[in-house]
C-alpha cells in the first residue's frame, strides 16, 4: 500500500477517476501513514474515521460519475482553518478544545470538490513563528535530516506540520497560510511546493486571523501541478470576506508546463545578501540558467526598499495581531483562568493561554499602536509598505512578468538552534518572503536543489497581482530541471 502514498495528487486523481484505485484504499493508506509517523508531530488531530466516511462517499460519487475535481483526495488541514465539528486551536492553549460550528470557506470548497480530511496539522501558535517551535503541541520534526546525522531539524513555519506531512507522504496536499512566508519557507525547507496566492485570491473567512492585511491561504503539495489543482479549489470570491477579490479563478493546471519563452524575469539585486551561503547563491544562479535555457529573458532589477520590509513587517503584523487576538479573553470560549475580578481573569487567562512568542508580538503590537507612538511606528511602516509595493509596480510596469529570488537565506536548521537568545535571528528567515506579503503579490516556492548536507533548498518566484498562472508555468519549468526531492523515512 505504500505506493499509494507516493502518488502525486494529480496521479491519484487520474487513477481514482479510471477506478484503478478506490478512494477508501487511498484514504486507508494515508491514515496508516499518518499513524506511523507520529514521531514527526505533524498532525495535532487525526480524523481517520471521518477520512474513511468521506472516502466512501467519494467512491459512491465516482461510481455515479459525479466526481469533483478533488474527489477522494486525502488532504491535511492546517489547524488555523476552522473545521466544523473538528477541534480547531491554531495550536494555542488559549483556544483549548474549541470546536467550531462552522467551516472555513477555503476548506468547505475543498470538501465541495470531493477532498477527504485526514486531520489537522501542527503550526506555530497563531502562525507566529518560522520553525513550528512555538506550537502549544510542541515542535514538528522535519522528515529531512542532514546526511549522517540524527539531529532533529525544523520543517520551517508557521505551516510546519503541513509541509512535513506532505514531504513525509502522509497526505497528497495540505492547506497552509502565509503572513510573512509561512507557506513558502516551510515548503523550501522540506522540498515541497508552496504557493501564497495574491492577497484576496482566497477567502480568509473561517481562518484564525494573525495579521488580516497579510494573511493568505494557499496549498503545500508535492508538485507544481498539484499546487495548481489544489489552489483552483481553494480560491475564489466570497461575499463573507470583503477583502476577497471578485475575480474568477482560472484553470491553473493549464498553465503547468506551458512555455515560458519570452517571459521577462527580474532578478532583484537587493536579494543578494552579505554573508549569504554559497549554496543559496548557487541554486539561484542555477535557476536563472534553467529559465534562460527555457527561453525566458533575465533582467536585473532593483527593489530599493527591500531592506525596510522586515522591520516594517514586524510593526504591521504584530499591530494587527495585537488587535485580532483581543477576542481570546476567556469570556466566551477557550481557556479561562479564574481571577479576582474581570481584569485579573483577563490577565491570568492571556498570560497562561498565550505562549512566549505570541505574548511578545501582542506587546510589540500594542506598543506600536499606542498614543504617541502610532505615527512613528505604525503609520511609518504603512508608508514603507506603500513604497515596497511601488518598487514592484515599477518593475512590472517595465515589462517584467515575474521575479526570481531564493526562498530562504539558508536550509533548515536544528530544533532549538535559532532564536533562543535573539528573536530577530528567527525573524530573518522571512527576509525574502515578507516583501511579497507586504506588496500583496503571489509568490511560489519550488524545490531547486540540495545543500552539501543533502537538505532541500527552494527558489521563489514572485508574480504580478492575480497572475498565479505565470508562476505555475515558471515553477514547472524549474521543477522539470530540478526534479523531485523525497525525504528518506527515519520515523
Amino acid at each position: 500500500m505504500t505506493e499509494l502514498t507516493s502518488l502525486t495528487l494529480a496521479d491519484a486523481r487520474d487513477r481514482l477517476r479510471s477506478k484503478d484505485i478506490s478512494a477508501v484504499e487511498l484514504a486507508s493508506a494515508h491514515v496508516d501513514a499518518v499513524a506511523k509517523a507520529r514521531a514527526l508531530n505533524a498532525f495535532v488531530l487525526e480524523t481517520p474515521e471521518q477520512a474513511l466516511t468521506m472516502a466512501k462517499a467519494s467512491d459512491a460519487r465516482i461510481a455515479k460519475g459525479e466526481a469533483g475535481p478533488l474527489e477522494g483526495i486525502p488532504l491535511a488541514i492546517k489547524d488555523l482553518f476552522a473545521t466544523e465539528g473538528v477541534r480547531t486551536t491554531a495550536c494555542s492553549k488559549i483556544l483549548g478544545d474549541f470546536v467550531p460550528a462552522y467551516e472555513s470557506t477555503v476548506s468547505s470548497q475543498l470538501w465541495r470538490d470531493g477532498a477527504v480530511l485526514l486531520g489537522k496539522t501542527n503550526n506555530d501558535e497563531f502562525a507566529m513563528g518560522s520553525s513550528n517551535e512555538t506550537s502549544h503541541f510542541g515542535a514538528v520534526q522535519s522528515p529531512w535530516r542532514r546526511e549522517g546525522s540524527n539531529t532533529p531539524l525544523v520543517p520551517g513555519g508557521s505551516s510546519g506540520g503541513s509541509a512535513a506531512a506532505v514531504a513525509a507522504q502522509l497526505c497528497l496536499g495540505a492547506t497552509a497560510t502565509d503572513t510573512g512566508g509561512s507557506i513558502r519557507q516551510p515548503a523550501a525547507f522540506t522540498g515541497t511546493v508552496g504557493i501564497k496566492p495574491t492577497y484576496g485570491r482566497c477567502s480568509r473567512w473561517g481562518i484564525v486571523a494573525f495579521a488580516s492585511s497579510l494573511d493568505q491561504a494557499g496549498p503545500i503539495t508535492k508538485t507544481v501541478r498539484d499546487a495548481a489543482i489544489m489552489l483552483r479549489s481553494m480560491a475564489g470570491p466570497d461575499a463573507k470576506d470583503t477583502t476577497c477579490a471578485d475575480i474568477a479563478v482560472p484553470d491553473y493546471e493549464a498553465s503547468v508546463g506551458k512555455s515560458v519563452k519570452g517571459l521577462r524575469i527580474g532578478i532583484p539585486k537587493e536579494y543578494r545578501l552579505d554573508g549569504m551561503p554559497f549554496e543559496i547563491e548557487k541554486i539561484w544562479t542555477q535557476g536563472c540558467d534553467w529559465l534562460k535555457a527555457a527561453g525566458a529573458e533575465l533582467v536585473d532589477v532593483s527593489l530599493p526598499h527591500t531592506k525596510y520590509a522586515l522591520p516594517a513587517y514586524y510593526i504591521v503584523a504584530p499591530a494587527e495581531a495585537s488587535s485580532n487576538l483581543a477576542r481570546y479573553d476567556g469570556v466566551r470560549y477557550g481557556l479561562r483562568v479564574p481571577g479576582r475580578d474581570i481584569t485579573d481573569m483577563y490577565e491570568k487567562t492571556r498570560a497562561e493561554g498565550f505562549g512566549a512568542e505570541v505574548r511578545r508580538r501582542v506587546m510589540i503590537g500594542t506598543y506600536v499602536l499606542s498614543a504617541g507612538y502610532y505615527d512613528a511606528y505604525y503609520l511609518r511602516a504603512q508608508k514603507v509598505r506603500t513604497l515596497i509595493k511601488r518598487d514592484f509596480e515599477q518593475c512590472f510596469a517595465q515589462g517584467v512578468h515575474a521575479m526570481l529570488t531564493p526562498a530562504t537565506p539558508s536550509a533548515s536548521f536544528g530544533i532549538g538552534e535559532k532564536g533562543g537568545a535573539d528573536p530577530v535571528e528567527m525573524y530573518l528567515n522571512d527576509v525574502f518572503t515578507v516583501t511579497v506579503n507586504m506588496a500583496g503579490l503571489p509568490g511560489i516556492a519550488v524545490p531547486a536543489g540540495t545543500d552539501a548536507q543533502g537538505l532541500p533548498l527552494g527558489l521563489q518566484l514572485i508574480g504580478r497581482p492575480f497572475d498565479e498562472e505565470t508562476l505555475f508555468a515558471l515553477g514547472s519549468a524549474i521543477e522539470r530541471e530540478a526534479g523531485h526531492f523525497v525525504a528518506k523515512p527515519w520515523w
Partner: protein
Amino acid sequence: MNVQSKPSKFITGATGDWEVVIGMEVHAQVSSKSKLFSGASTAFGGAPNSHVSLVDAAMPGMLPVINAECVNQAVRTGLGLNARINLRSVFDRKNYFYPDLPQGYQISQYKQPVVGEGVVVVDLPDGEAVSIGIERLHLEQDAGKSVHDKHPQMSAVDLNRSGVALMEIVSKPDLRSSEEAKAFLAKLRSIMRYLGTCDGNMEEGSLRADVNVSVRKPGEPLGTRCEIKNVNSLRFIGQAIEHEARRQIDIIEDGGVIVQETRLFDPTKGETRSMRSKEEAHDYRYFPDPDLLPLELTAEAVEALKAKLPELPDEKKARFVRDFGLSSYDAGQLVAERETADYYETVVKGRDAKLAANWVINELFGRLNKEGKTIATSPMSAQQLGGLIALISDKTISGKIAKDLFEILWTEGGEPRALVESRGMAQVTDLGAIGSIVDDLIAQNPDKVAQAKANPKAMMWFVGQVMKSSGGKASPQAVNDLLKSKLGV
C-alpha cells in the same frame, strides 16, 4: 465656538454672570433590519443572546461585512443635517477589553467619518432660532449588555445589541443653555424620525447622549470641560447640565480648577459624579480595520438618496407658514413629529388653517398630553376634528359648543355633523327667538342699558345673559348685531 449667547441665558454666580458652553455626542441607533457588519436581527427585546451571529460573538476567523442599508441611513441622516457627505470614509478599530465587547475592539470611524460638517436650526420656546453646528457623523458598532444582578459573584452578558449600527452625531460646542441642548436633541430626533433613520426611542436606548459641559465668564476663552455619559432622557439632560454648570461655577468661585473628566449622571439624586479622569482614560489604539476596505460612495448614489428624501421639518414648517399663514412657533409645534404634521394636514384640508392649528395645538395636544396618549393612539381622528372645525367655520356651532362636541367625539366618537343634529347643538341664528330674549333684558335692566350706551364695552353683560338664556346655542355674532341695533351703540 465664539457664539455669544444672550445675557438672559447666563447663570448668576457669586462673582457675576457665567456662560455655559455645551457640546453633545448623540448615539442614535440606525433603523435597519440587521446589524452593521452581520446578518443578525436588530429587533429589540429578544431573549438574551438570541440575535447573535458568529461575527457578533467574535468567533475565531469571523469577518465583518458592511451592511449597505446602514450606510445609506447614515448618508440620509447626513443630508438631513445639511452636512457634507464624505465619499471616502474609513472604519477603524477602537481597542479595549470589556466582557460585552466580544472582539476586544469596536469598529468605528475615527479620522475619516462618513459625514462631515453640517448645521441644524433649533427653535426655542421664546421664538428665537439658533443654528447649531454639526462636527461630524460616523457609523460604529454598539456593544452588548452586561447584566450584574443574575449571580452573586458573576456578571452575565447579552450580545443581542452587540454589533447593532449606531450613528454618533457630534455637535460643535455651540449650545449655551440646557434649554438649547434639549431643543437640539429634540430637533435631531425629529429629523431622524422624519427620515426613518432612527426611531428616537430614548426608553429603549435607541437615542442616547453624552454631554460636554464647561463654563466661562462671558467673552472669555473656553473653560475645561467635563463629559457626562449616557444621559437618557430630555429631562435628565436638562438636569444634568444645570447641575454640572452649577458645580463647576461653585468650584471656580471657591478658587478651585475644573479637572477634565468623565462623569455619570445619577437621575435619582439629580447630580453628576466622577467616573474617570483624563489620566485614567483608555488608550484606544485606533487603527484602520484591515478586515474592511475603505467605504467608497459615488456622488450619483448620494444624489439618488437625496432625491428621495422626504420633506423635512424645516421645509415643512416653512411651507406651513407660507401656505397656511401660521406663526413660526405654531408651525414648529405642528411639524415636530411627522405624524402630527400629517394629522394637521388632514384636518386643514378645505378648512380655516389658523383655526385648525389652534384646535390641534391647544385642544388636541393638551388632551393627548393629559391622558398620556400620542397622535397615533388618539381617540379622535383627523377627519373628526376637521368636521368639527368645519361646523365652527360655517357657524353651525359656536366655539363654546365646539368644546362640548370635542368632548363627545373624544369619549363617545361619532360623526360631528350628525351628532350636532341629533343632539340639537346647532346654534340659534333665528333673530326672532333671540330678539324676544333681548327685548326682555332691555326692558328689565334700564341701568345696564344706560351703562352700555355710555360705554359700549358694557354691552358684554347683555351678550352673556343672552348666551346663558339660549343654553349657549345663540350665535354670538347674531347676538352682537342684534344688541348693537337695539341699544343703538
